[in-house]
């Protein structure tokens, strides 16, 4: 068939683990070949026709951030006129609305805000839990920053956040887990090994986490593979990753600028993620960056999860990419492709008695 051979077809057909050089050779395969192999891997890991999603909203408690990443259109530096920290009243209104929509939890992320202390974060988690909502909160750069600011070890910090009610950790801030790239796009953010260190500590503390990859900027395809291997290696050790969520850099309003990557490269990267990450159970589509139609196609390229309703999303929206979907629309989009939608929570447990 298409592309080089060297035993790769047999390995893919058998579902055998791919080494780094084999993984890099996946890029030479055509889109349909990758899709077919990824779909087979998806069926091995997630048999049946189920596609899951969660009802949530992305709450950004602050946009003030010292990190100043060049790909980000959302943050404001400390002291900026339009910087904010969400007040409790506004937060309560958001939570009440989410409850009314049948939400099970909140994706809680903000920035590296020097004016917030540990007591604030603990109160924030506790407050949200008070509404009967899970807190999928604080990406590794935030956790790493919090630990430093409060002179706590990662383990101690995580213990305190868990005691306040933290349910799981989102996989944001991973960008590309290669320091050559991070040096250029996010020099003030935690390094790739620090990101992995936070995740390892979280997994050991019993927290489930997801992992992301933001691609399509300065990284090479090989560096995407390196990213996948770092996730796979840690997962071999801890088994704490629930899902992998690759999404494409959106240049609108950022300092980094450039052109957004196209849909074919997105699908290829998605399929390769499924093939390399043989130990991460779920793969999520990014409809917020790709739009509903590419998200549907993605279900044939290894993905088994449609993400979330994101009643609210501010970070991608800041780049001018504005896809919005309701629960009903997600349900229809999944069904239209011949799959069965199922609600889940942020730890990827299926919702009980969900008859959809």
């Amino acid at each position, binding site marked *: *068939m298409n592309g080089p051979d060297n035993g790769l*077809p047999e390995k*893919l*057909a058998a579902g055998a683990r791919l080494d780094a050089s084999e993984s890099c050779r996946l890029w030479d395969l*055509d*889109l*349909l*070949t990758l*899709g*077919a*192999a990824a*779909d*087979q891997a998806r069926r091995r890991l997630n048999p049946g026709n189920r596609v899951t999603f969660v009802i949530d909203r992305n709450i950004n408690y602050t946009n003030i951030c010292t990190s100043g990443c060049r790909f980000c259109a959302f943050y404001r530096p400390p002291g900026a006129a339009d910087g904010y920290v969400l007040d409790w009243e506004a937060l309560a209104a958001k939570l009440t609305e989410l409850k009314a929509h049948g939400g099970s939890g909140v994706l809680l992320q903000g920035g590296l805000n020097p004016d917030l202390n540990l007591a604030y974060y603990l109160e924030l988690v506790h407050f949200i839990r008070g509404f009967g909502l899970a807190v999928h909160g604080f990406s590794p750069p935030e956790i790493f920053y919090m630990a430093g600011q409060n002179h706590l070890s990662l383990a101690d910090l995580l213990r305190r956040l868990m005691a306040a009610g933290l349910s799981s950790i989102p996989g944001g801030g991973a960008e590309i887990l290669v320091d050559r790239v991070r040096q250029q796009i996010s020099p003030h953010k935690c390094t790739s090994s620090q990101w992995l260190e936070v995740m390892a500590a979280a997994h050991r503390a019993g927290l489930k986490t997801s992992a992301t990859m933001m691609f399509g900027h300065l990284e090479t395809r090989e560096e995407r593979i390196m990213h996948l291997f770092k996730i796979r290696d840690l997962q071999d050790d801890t088994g704490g990753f629930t899902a992998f969520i690759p999404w494409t850099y959106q240049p609108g309003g950022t300092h980094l600028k450039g*052109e957004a*990557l*196209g*849909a*074919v*490269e997105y*699908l290829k990267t998605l399929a390769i993620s499924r093939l390399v990450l043989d130990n991460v159970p779920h793969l999520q589509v990014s409809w917020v960056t*790709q*739009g*509903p*139609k*590419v*998200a*549907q*196609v993605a279900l*044939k390229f290894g993905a088994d999860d449609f993400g979330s309703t994101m009643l609210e999303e501010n970070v991608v929206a800041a780049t001018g990419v504005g896809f919005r979907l309701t629960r009903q629309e997600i349900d*229809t*989009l999944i069904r*239209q*492709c*011949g799959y069965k939608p199922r609600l889940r929570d942020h730890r990827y447990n299926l919702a009980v008695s969900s008859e959809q």
Partner: protein
Amino acid sequence: MVWAGIKDPALQPIYDKVAAGARLNRQDGCTLFETPDLLGVGRLAQTVRERLHGRKAYYIYNQHINYSNICVNGCKFCAFGRKAGEPGAYEMSLPEIFEKVEARAHEPITEIHIVGGCHPDLPLVYYLDMLRGIKARRPEVHLQAFTAVEVAHLAQKAEMSVPDTLAALKEAGLGSLPGGGAEVFSPRVRQSLCPEKLSPEGWIEVAQMAHRLDLNTNATMLYGHLETVAERVDHLVRLREAQDETGGFLAFIPLAFHPANTGLSDLAGPSAIDDLKTLAISRLMLDNFPHIKAFWVMLGPKLSQISLCFGVDDVDGTVMEERITHMAGAQTPQGLTRAQLQALIREAGCEPVERDTLYRVIDA
């Protein structure tokens, strides 16, 4: 079989036919629509696409002019058409049209694509003067204008035969006909969606008369509303039969139904899986059509790019101002630049080729 990308054993006999270059029948068409194996269908279509065009993918530097949305037909699936006097109804005067042409006179446009409604009052001379006036301003540009539906309407209004009308339009500068207005040929569907519109027989007849006058045409199918799989296949087979007779069709363009602002806004519209399958199956069934086009304005640039791996060899063009699909809620941009189209094609692993209307290569 998995490595070849075909998983559904029901596709095996079709695979054999495609490999042998044999014609597919109606049952094959239905099997292709019914299989859940999207990637298998894509692989089959790619076999044909690569045989015909290799890795080439075509685009055109074009301009769209939708001269009026006033239309006597009132088709339920349409968000563009208005009755005369209704809010939102518009018609462009000839000077307005010429202004649009002149505004882009410095651009290397090779085709102006002109489509409107079935206007109750505009006389044939308006259309003839439109073509003549544009040609006078840009003699080198090819005019692809007026669907078979508009042509039949014009002929009727002018009390002329269709061939005489086409000859007059050709004389005035018409180069070819776009493929719109075919909708779905099923009488059942048309009865409920567009009973006033030119019949399927009439549509095919106008296209074939154009072919006999040495005017090429395109063909379309509006899908994803009330039609069944068998009705889609029937549409494709009828086009294939017509092409066997006159051979003047250049491209087939499946058009995804956009429900917003139409009389069918409660429908969801086709899924992306359906879009890709329909394009791929068109490539497989229409073995005598040179080109399958993904109209990016309707599908979106992203899905159009993916479709280049599902049998499509043409993504239309720069466009710049399109009203019909945008009034049905399309979120796509108004235009793409040449560089954007080339990048879109390259990223899909294809080789961009700028073409004119007749698919002659332009040195861009």
